[in-house]
Every structure is written in structure tokens, then in C-alpha cells.
């Protein structure tokens, strides 16, 4: 049993770096511990991990672990009963340039996560949709709206900024 299970798990474990990076990007205090936790869960529930592409499952699990960690530390409110996990606004992003950081924070949590899964985790829309537990069509709509809102927000800030700052913001 262990031989075949380990063989299968090795394909999952190969994504450890992805999990460390994901946890770090989402502001985890101990990203390596989060990644290790997710891998331990994947080993326990190996039959639940998709064989073809485990990344959506791993990221969804990492998100849950992060949420649980934050719940535990009192940074989130209320229980999860009946709440869409992806929609919970508990993600704290690692330091970014202030303009982009502000614009991302003004998005809803679900829109922000949709953007970041594609831009930072490099997931395809269908993989990102699987990670969020929604249909690919719904994800594409969410991604489109998020992209449009972010672009509009950044453009609006640029119009308000003095010209030399606008140039600097464009450069950044």
C-alpha cells in the first residue's frame, strides 16, 4: 500500500513550493508550516486529491487552513456556517506598492482572490474555478469584473494624482 500511495503522493508533494509561496503571498505568519499542514492533510485524504492536477485542491485546502489559522487568532468574525469561504474577507496581502495594494483591498475578497489565483498562482481559469469551488463560467465572469474594477480604480486614482505622481505610478 505504502509504495503505491507514496508514488501517488510524490506527485502531490512536488507542489510544496507552490503552497509555501501561496501562503507567503497571502500574509501567513508561518508559510512553511501552512504548506506542511496542507501536505499532511493531502496524505490523509489522498483519494480526494485529483490525480491530473492537484493544485486547485491544494490551494483550496491551504485557503481553509489559513482561514482556520486566522479564526483561531481572532482575526475573523463569526463562524463559517453557511458562509462562502472564498468570500470571507480575511486575506491579508503581503506588502505591495501602496497604490496596487489599496486597489486590491477595495475589491471584494472573492474578486481579489480570483485575480491573484490567475496572476500570482498562475492557475488557468478552470483550475482557479475548481480551487474556489465554482463553475468555470462563473469564474470567468468574476475574473472579468475584477479586472475591470481594478483597472477602473487605478485609472481613477491616476486622474486624481498630480502629473509627476501619475508618471511615477505608471513606472511602478
Amino acid at each position, binding site marked *: 500500500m*505504502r509504495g503505491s500511495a507514496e508514488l501517488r*503522493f510524490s506527485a502531490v508533494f512536488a507542489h510544496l513550493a507552490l503552497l509555501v509561496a501561496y501562503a507567503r503571498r497571502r500574509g501567513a505568519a508561518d508559510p512553511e508550516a501552512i504548506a*506542511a499542514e496542507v501536505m499532511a492533510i493531502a496524505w*490523509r485524504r489522498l483519494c480526494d486529491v485529483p490525480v491530473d492536477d492537484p493544485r486547485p485542491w491544494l490551494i483550496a485546502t491551504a485557503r481553509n487552513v489559513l482561514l482556520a489559522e486566522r479564526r483561531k487568532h481572532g482575526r475573523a468574525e463569526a463562524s463559517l*456556517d*453557511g458562509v462562502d469561504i472564498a468570500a470571507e474577507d480575511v486575506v491579508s*496581502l503581503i506588502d505591495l506598492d501602496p497604490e496596487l495594494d489599496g486597489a486590491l483591498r477595495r475589491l471584494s475578497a472573492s474578486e481579489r482572490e480570483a485575480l491573484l489565483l490567475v496572476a500570482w498562482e498562475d492557475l488557468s481559469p478552470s483550475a482557479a474555478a475548481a480551487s474556489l469551488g465554482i463553475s468555470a463560467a462563473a469564474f470567468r465572469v468574476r475574473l472579468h469584473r475584477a479586472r475591470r474594477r481594478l*483597472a477602473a480604480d487605478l485609472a481613477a486614482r491616476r486622474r486624481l494624482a498630480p502629473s509627476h505622481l501619475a508618471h511615477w505610478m505608471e513606472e511602478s
Partner: protein
Amino acid sequence: MSETTVMQRLRAANPVAEVPVDAPELWQQIVTSSGDPRVEAARRRGLRGWWRSGRAHRSALLACGVLVAACGSAGVAKVTGVVDPFAIFAHDTPAQLFDASPGYESRLQPKLVAGSVRLVETFSVPRVGTVQYWTARNVKGWACSAFKLPNGEWAGTLDASSERYGFAGTVPGCHGPWITWEGPYFHYDSIWLGLAGSRPYGILYGTARTAASATEVRDLLSGATARVVQGGYFVLLIPARGRYNRIPYVHLEALDADRHVLAIAPADHITFGP
């Protein structure tokens, strides 16, 4: 700024590059812990199919040869001092068992809170016998759980013992709240026990945490009940049902001594099964 430019800018602002991680120790810790019992179940189903196939005799001869070789290797390993990571827990005290648990949280091996190890419940599983439920707390506040089987072995530490009692599950181990089902009132996980040829039981174990003192936990779907002991602990036996001997859902409620409902958990999908 166009939407395409926005995505380019967002990609360029990625604050953390993905760099390869070499973690052989983590790998070793994880794969020596209890894995997914369904992998073993699938393997058994595969073996049954294999045995019925026309190549059975030829393959059986080959398997016997491999078995003899493996037994020889095991003997050599014993002589040369190689220790089976599961066997070392076979006769330990519960405290040692939890401290060096091969269960959920082997990566950190957090130390136990002194004096927290205790036997919280003894219960009887039909056709299996009397089983003990032991718990502990570690310094991170996580719950540790272990079950002592009727033959005195710890469930999940010896393959032979687990096989004998049809055990499946991920004990012994200490785990954070996110691994088990976590709600405002209940915190539980599950194992599986049952002899071949008899109806197996799913065993929910954990705590009920209600403002008033709960005295009983009941599964609304199966009707199974369990008493709540000191500390809010309970062990609920739910007989398997259905075509595949599985328990797809549970729906727990906690009651006080006057049979008033104190808390109800949402219906929960349980993934255990033989």
C-alpha cells in the same frame, strides 16, 4: 489603464517568487504517518479482482517468492536494529504515544501538557469488544486522540492489529482544529471499526462545547446517542448502512439532562468507510 495592462502589472508585482523547496524530512514525517485508509481499501478491492483473474496461479507463485524475500529482509532488518516506526508505539504509555505520534501533526511534534493525558471513555463495539478512548492536549492547545483496542494495542500503530479489528482512521495523533470538523459547538473526527462479515461501525469522537452542560449527544439521522463525559468528550457509535456499508452523513445535536436541545450542528459529510 487597460485590463490587459492591469494584469501585466499585477503579475509583475507578484511579491513572492516560487522557488523549489527541498524538504526530505517533511516528506519522511508525512509518509510515515497514517495515510488515507481508502487507498488500502482500493488496493484490497484490486487484489480481489486480481485473484479472480486467469493469471492468479502464475502471479501467486511470484507473490510467494516476493513474500519469502520480504520476510527474509524483515528478519535481517530486525537483527541489524532497524525499527519499524509503527512498532515503537506498540507498548508505550499513552503520553509517549502522543508525544511521538505518527498521526496528523508529525511535522511539529509539539509537546504534551503535563497531566493532560487521560482515559475519557470506555465503550463497547459489537463483535469487536471494549475500546478505550484516550485524549491529551499539547502545548499548542491541539487535541490528541488515541484508541486502545481490546487486545491492548493502540489503533493505528500496528498493521496487524488494525487489520484484525477492521480499523481505519488517523489516530493516534494531535491535530489542529482545521483538520477535524469545527463548528461553534462540536469538534470531532471519526474512525472505523468492524470485523469482517459483521456490520462495521463509524465512531465519531470529540467534544461538545455548549454553554450549559450537555449530557448527551445524538445523531439525528441514525438515532445513535452517546453520553457526554467530563470535559465535554463523547464517543458516538454509528452502524454502517446502505449498499456500501458507509455512513454518508451525520447531524449532531447536544442535549442537557432534561432532554432540552442545547446545540445542533449542520449535517456533515463523513468520508470514512472500509
